[in-house]
């Protein structure tokens, strides 16, 4: 995966402690100015990978190369300490030092390199103004709110010349509203400064909103990578699909559709047939697999199916969620979940007809 032109590349990285192997052979290549996100559930190895890149964990094997020079190489015994790698990092806990002022936190990178306060001041002020905290420079850092602390952490990460900003779930400790606001701010900041970023999160929305490229991880391995749209539109495996909110994943027999390239016919239990996209088609005539679709893509009509088709079902449960209602619908042996506007007639036991546009229905092979 690594090519000579990559700004930062991680090759066959493995990290283990004791008998646990947290990362089991991961390759990542990042171009200059790119924002790459490691996405996955907790325990998938994403944070360990990031900390290994930072130098805070020592991998058991593999290589990490920055601008052509290895900062870690297990085979050659190279292990550059974190402070010499030229990265900066934003932590989940913010890690703002409570015994320093805001300006001292942001200027720490200058202080440890022996750069005087006066000399560092313009850069510190500039970083603080970028996160709209100029007025807080001389406040003790312990008196800030969570959102402000996160801004200080961000200012600290960009104040000193850095090659890559590493971000470890930086928004996960904020409440929902603040998280969305900070997400926008972060994306704006990166647009202005153009820094290279490696971002770790378990929140798919965050990953979609911020990334140039998303790497989905599972159990210490990379499951799929691509642009946000690619990943959202065409998850390759059941794991990625369900992690990205395709709640309905149903076993099916997949048959390629003659004459329609990239389309397939999926036969579910109970002889229910759906048409589905098959972007990762492998040319085989018929295989066992699955189809997946999101609850919002299910269209529901009250009553029995009309002449245009549709699948007959019975509402087994309906939950009012506010803007949406969640309906569980049983059709023979299968049960699906649908999100639609709340409608009066669709109470439990009601007869409905449902369908999914082939464009929104996806063949999953693994």
């Amino acid at each position, binding site marked *: 995966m690594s090519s000579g032109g990559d700004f930062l590349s991680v090759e066959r990285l493995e990290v283990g402690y004791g008998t646990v192997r947290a990362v089991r052979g991961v390759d990542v290549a990042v171009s200059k100015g790119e924002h790459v996100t490691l996405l996955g559930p907790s325990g998938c190895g994403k944070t360990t990978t990031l900390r290994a890149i930072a130098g805070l964990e020592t991998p058991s094997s593999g290589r990490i190369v*920055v601008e052509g020079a290895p900062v870690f190489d297990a085979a050659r015994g190279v292990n550059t300490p974190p402070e010499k790698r030229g990265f900066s990092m934003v932590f989940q806990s913010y890690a703002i030092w409570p015994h320093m002022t805001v300006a001292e936190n942001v200027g720490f990178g200058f202080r440890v390199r022996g750069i005087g306060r006066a000399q560092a001041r313009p850069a510190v002020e500039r970083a603080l103004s970028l996160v709209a905290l100029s007025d807080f420079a001389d406040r003790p850092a312990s008196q800030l709110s969570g959102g402000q602390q996160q801004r200080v952490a961000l200012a600290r990460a960009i104040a000193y010349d850095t090659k890559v900003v590493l971000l470890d779930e930086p928004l996960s400790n904020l409440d929902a509203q603040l998280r969305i606001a900070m997400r926008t701010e972060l994306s704006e900041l990166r647009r202005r*400064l*153009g820094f290279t970023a490696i971002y770790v999160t378990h929140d798919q929305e965050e990953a979609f909103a911020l990334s140039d490229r998303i790497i989905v991880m599972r159990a210490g391995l990379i499951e799929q990578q691509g642009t946000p749209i690619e990943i959202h539109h065409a998850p390759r495996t059941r794991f990625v699909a369900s992690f990205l909110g395709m709640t309905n994943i149903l076993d099916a027999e997949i048959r390629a559709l003659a004459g329609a390239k990239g389309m397939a016919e999926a036969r579910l239990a109970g002889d229910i047939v759906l048409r589905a996209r098959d972007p990762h088609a492998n040319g085989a005539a018929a295989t066992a697999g699955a189809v997946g679709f999101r609850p919002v893509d299910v269209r529901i009509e009250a009553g029995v199916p009309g002449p245009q088709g549709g699948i007959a079902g019975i509402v087994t449960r309906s939950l009012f969620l506010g803007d949406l209602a969640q309906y569980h619908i049983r059709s023979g042996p299968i049960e699906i979940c649908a999100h639609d506007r709340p409608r009066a007639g669709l109470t439990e036991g009601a007869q409905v007809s449902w369908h999914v546009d082939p464009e929104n229905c996806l063949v999953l092979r693994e």
Partner: protein
Amino acid sequence: MSAPGAPLAIGSSGPAHARRTIAAETVVTVGLSALVTVLVMLPMLAVAIGAATETGGLSLRPFLTVLGALRVIGNTVWVGVGTTVLAVGLGGLLALVLARMNTPGRGLLSQLVPLPLYITPLLTAIAWSWLGSPRGGLINLLFRQMLGVESLVNLQSAGGIIFVAGLAYVPLPFLLIGAALRGMDPSLEESARVHGASMAAALRLVTLPLVLPATLGSAILVFVQAMGLFSVPAVLGMPGGFYVAGTEIYRLLNNFPPRVSQAAAWGLLLLVVTAGLVWAQNALLNRRSYVTVTGKAFRPRTLEIGGIRYALAALAWLYVAAAVLLPVATLVWAALVNFITIDPKLMAFDLQHFRYVLLEYPKTYLAMRNSLVLGVAAATCACALGLGIGWVIVRTRSAARSYLDQVSMFPLAMPSMVLALGLLWVYVRTPMLPIYGTIWILLIAYVTHYLPFGVRAGSSALRQLHRELEDAARMTGASWTKTIRWVTFPLSRPTLVAAWTLLFILSMQEISSSILLYTSRTTVLSVAVFDLWEAGNVNALAALSVIQLAITFVALAIFIRARHREVLA
């Protein structure tokens, strides 16, 4: 910044140079492991070897002689068990009464009960020997004069030793059991009440079993100290020919010629017993789960008790009077009165004894200087080592972690006399390390003895410190040493300052190991006090004791004021 024309770039950090590095962490881990091994394992090994050798070579005779001294063994066990039962019983009761019941004055009493921690048992024992010795004791004199009875109390006895040592060690169980009672989830008790238990039954069936680990732990701590106790049996036992292991070791070494092997055999016997107990405690407590302290802030319910609460408060005041007020008042009185008498007409008060101690007694300044130097150095070294070892235990995945964690706790099971014996044996025999007879051997003994406190303080300070605070410093360009200096150390300072103060005060009063290791040039305050006691110079002794107490309480006051300021800031 990576973008062209990056606005914030000041200097370019350049390409990261690939290089081999031996992490500073590795050096520190290996160094600390080696140091702890030398400090802790070496004296234990020396005691074992010393006990098995005589001038003629390997021999079992010292050990057999010791096992034959059934009287002293019996005395030691009796004093150890009695002291432990009294200290844990009274300490636990006071903890329950002051932490959980609506006792009048519980706030003030909770501050007063731990005070004996800061007063060495040597002084309490001396004060009580003046009050309760069979013939000249002030209490006996008073009663003889008023009622014409012969001696009423005799504290120069096993009972007297247990009484004074028990009072002196009450604060340990009081603090440990009190913390367990306060940290307990009150819903555990409430659910017992809801399911039909009376208040007494809930206490007996739920609360007390849950504070069992703290009770057992403090009982073992007290027992280890009581088994190796020197000062109290020296003052209250030796005059009447009542010997326990600690005073027996002292007697054997002050014999001419000193019987080192036999003393070492006593040390080994003590070590085996205390180590066995600590092992048994761990085995017992590991079998069941007692995890009740969840880190949540609880406010345990106060138990409303009836009129008995006045009796319990009176008991607490009686304790404070017997362990603190009466002994200190006696010492101050004896330091000021011209000579000891109970006849008010003969009493005259002036500062002549202070004048003598400060201006004429030749050992005062030497002892004071040595004690201050040792107090500062031992507290600093133990805290620094504790922070370093705590760092390895809490922050690294090093294989040395559990070794350091366990070995640095060994001194808790090692009476300080035994430690001193081991050091004597090692350094008398290693002339290339000219440490014997210098202040260094005392420093080594103090640091080893207080190492467990330092490590507990260091590791608990670091556990409270999110590791990302340190990671952030590394990611902002700080080396490991700068991270420790600028982030770890300042943030763990409050905990370390508290530990430092306690260790300084304890060092200022240390006698059990000092009494074996001092020479005329390296005498310390407690030894000087003991010398005056042996010489029978009662008033000078009282004056020096008051000075020693004053230094302790000045240190405590400075610490409390500093912490108060820090909290306000």
